C-alpha cells in the first residue's frame, strides 16, 4: 500500500490538486470548435463531464438540452448521471446518444476522451480557465459551440460592466489575502489559478502567489510570517468549523486579530465560470471594505 501512495505522491507533488498534466498537444483551439460546429450544427443532446462546464452551460442555455452529467454536477435529479469525473461510464454515455460531449483538460482523463472519440462520439475539450481572460474565452467558445454565440457575448459584456462597477469600490491601501482550500493539509492556491486572478481583481494580493506550484501545501509558519489581512476559507462541509477554529491559535495574524476570517462557498472559487468570478470578486471587495 505504501508503495502505491509514494508513487502517486510524485504525481501529486508535480501537479497539485486536482490538475493532471496532459502530455498531448493542445487540441482546444478555435479551429477545433469551428470544425465541430460546422459538422454538428446546433447540438441538441449535450453531455457534460465536468461540474465547471455544467455551471457555464447553465448560464447560456436552459437545461433541457443537457442529457447527461457527472455525479458531482449541480443539476435537477432527473438529468441522468454518467458516473464520476475520473471514470465516467462509457456505456451510459453511449446509451444517451449525445450530439456532443463537453470535457476539460484539467479534470477529465485523456484515456476516456480518446475512447469516446474512437467510438465515433464528438468530444470537445476545454482548456484551463486560470484567469479572467481565459474564463471569458472559454465561455465564448462554449457559446459558439452551442449555437448561442451572441447570447454568451451579451452575458459577458453585462458581467464586465458589473465587474467595473464593483471595482470602483476597491479601498485604498494594501491588502494581503490567504485562501484556505483545505484543512489537513493546509492547501492554498498559487499563481496561474482562477482564484489568484480573482484576488488580483479585488486589489488585494494573494500571499501564496510566489509558490512553486498551483496548489501548494503551505507550512503554517509562512502564513504567520506573511501576515495576511484577510483569510478566506473555501467551504468544506463539516470541517469548515474546525478550520476556522484552528486560526484562533495564532491571534497575532492580522486577519485573526481583526476577526476577518470568512467562509466562501467552494464553487465560487473552484468552479471557473464568469458569473462565479464576478460574484467572488464582489464578495471579497465587500469583505475588504468592512
Amino acid at each position: 500500500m505504501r508503495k502505491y501512495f509514494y508513487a502517486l505522491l510524485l504525481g501529486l507533488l508535480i501537479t497539485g490538486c486536482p490538475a493532471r498534466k496532459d502530455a498531448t498537444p493542445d487540441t482546444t483551439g478555435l479551429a477545433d470548435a469551428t470544425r465541430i460546429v460546422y459538422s454538428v450544427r446546433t447540438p441538441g443532446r449535450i453531455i457534460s463531464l465536468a461540474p465547471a462546464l455544467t455551471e457555464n452551460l447553465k448560464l447560456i442555455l436552459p437545461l433541457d438540452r443537457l442529457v447527461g452529467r457527472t455525479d458531482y454536477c449541480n443539476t435537477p435529479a432527473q438529468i441522468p448521471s454518467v458516473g464520476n469525473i475520473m471514470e465516467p461510464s462509457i456505456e451510459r454515455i453511449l446509451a444517451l446518444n449525445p450530439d456532443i460531449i463537453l470535457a476539460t483538460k484539467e479534470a477529465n482523463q485523456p484515456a476516456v476522451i480518446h475512447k469516446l472519440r474512437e467510438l465515433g462520439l464528438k468530444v470537445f475539450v476545454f482548456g484551463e480557465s486560470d484567469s479572467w481572460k481565459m474564463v471569458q474565452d472559454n465561455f465564448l467558445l462554449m457559446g459558439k459551440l452551442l449555437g448561442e454565440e451572441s447570447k454568451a457575448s451579451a452575458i459577458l459584456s453585462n458581467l464586465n460592466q458589473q465587474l467595473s462597477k464593483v471595482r470602483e469600490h476597491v479601498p485604498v491601501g494594501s491588502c494581503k489575502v490567504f485562501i484556505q482550500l483545505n484543512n489537513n493539509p493546509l492547501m492554498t492556491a498559487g499563481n496561474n489559478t482562477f482564484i489568484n486572478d480573482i484576488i488580483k481583481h479585488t486589489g488585494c494580493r494573494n500571499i501564496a502567489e510566489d509558490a512553486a506550484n498551483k496548489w501548494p501545501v503551505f507550512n503554517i509558519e509562512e502564513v504567520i510570517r506573511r501576515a495576511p489581512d484577510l483569510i478566506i476559507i473555501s467551504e468544506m462541509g463539516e470541517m469548515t468549523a474546525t478550520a476556522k477554529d484552528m486560526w484562533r491559535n495564532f491571534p497575532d495574524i492580522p486577519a485573526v486579530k481583526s476577526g476577518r476570517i470568512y467562509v466562501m462557498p467552494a464553487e465560487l472559487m473552484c468552479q471557473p465560470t464568469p458569473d462565479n468570478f464576478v460574484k467572488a470578486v464582489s464578495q471579497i471587495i465587500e469583505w475588504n471594505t468592512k
Partner: protein
Amino acid sequence: MNRGALLALGFLIVIPAVALLCLVVGGTNISLFNMSDTDRTIIFDVRLPRILTALLVGAGLAACGCVLQAILRNPLADPYTLGISGGAAVGVTALLAIGPVAGLVNALGSFGLPLTAFAGALAAVGLVFLIASKQRFSVHGLILSGVILSFIFSGIVMLIFAVSKPTEIQSAMFWLMGNLANINYTLMLIVGSLILTGIIIAFILAKDMDVMTLGDEKAVHLGVSPQTTRRTLFIITSLITGACVAVSGIIGFVGLMIPHIMRLIVGPSHRMLLINSVLAGALFLAVTDTLARTIMAPNELPVGVITGIIGGVFFISLLMKKTV
C-alpha cells in the same frame, strides 16, 4: 563503559543541541537574540510542539520496531507489520472522504482526525489479537493475521477512494504519507504520555526480549513464557504505534531502519538496543521533519517522503558494505 552506553550518552548530548537548531531553522531562519513577535509565535506555537512531537513519535516508532523485531524474531519487522496502519488508514479515509457524522466531528474539532485514526488502529489491533490468540500467539499466527488484515484494509481504503472527490482523496493521501503539520500541545501531551509509558514498559521487558530471540523453546527453558510475553508486547507496541499514527499519519522506515542500524552498531542486547533505538529514532525524525518543512518552503512536504528517501539511501549504502 560499553559501546551502547557511550552511544546513548552521545545521543543525549546531541539531541538537545539539534533540537535547538531545528527551532531556528526553517522557511526563514530565526535568530535567537533578535526575535520579533511573529518569530516568537512561530517558535513557540508552531515549531516547538512540532519538534517535541517529532522526538516522541520517532522514539515511539523506533521502539516498536525494535520490540517487534525481537518478538517476531525477524530483523525486518516494522511497527506496521501487524496491520495497525491499515486500520488507522481506514478510519481516517472514511472520515475525510465519506463525510463524517456532523455532530461528532464538530464536537471533536481538531481532535477528530487523530481520534478516528486511533480508533481505526485499535480496531485493527483487536482483530489481529482475536485471530492471533486462536493461533496461540505463535509468531506465524501474528504475522499472518497482520499481513492479511493489511491487505483487507488496503482494499477498503481503495474502495473509499474510488467513490471520493479528488480533493478528499488528496487530503487522505497526504495524511497517509505522514506529516507533523497539525500539532497542538494537548495532543502532544496525550500522545506523548502513551508513547513514553509504552517505551518504559518495553524497557522493563528488555531481558525477556533477549531470551525470546533464542526461540520459543529456549525461552521456556530460561523461564520466559513466549505466549504471554508476545501478547503483552504486542499490546504495548500497538498502543505506541496507534498513538504515533494518530498524531502523524503513517511515517515509514523509522521503525524498520533505526533498530536495524542500531543493532549493527551496539549489538542485539535489548537493553542498550532499545535505549539507543529510541534516541536515534527521536533524533532522526526531528531532523527529517525539519527538512520536510524547510527544503521546499513555503511548501510543506510529507515527512514520510523524506524518511523514505533518506532511509532508503542510507540502508542501501549499508547493504553494500556489510551483510545485514
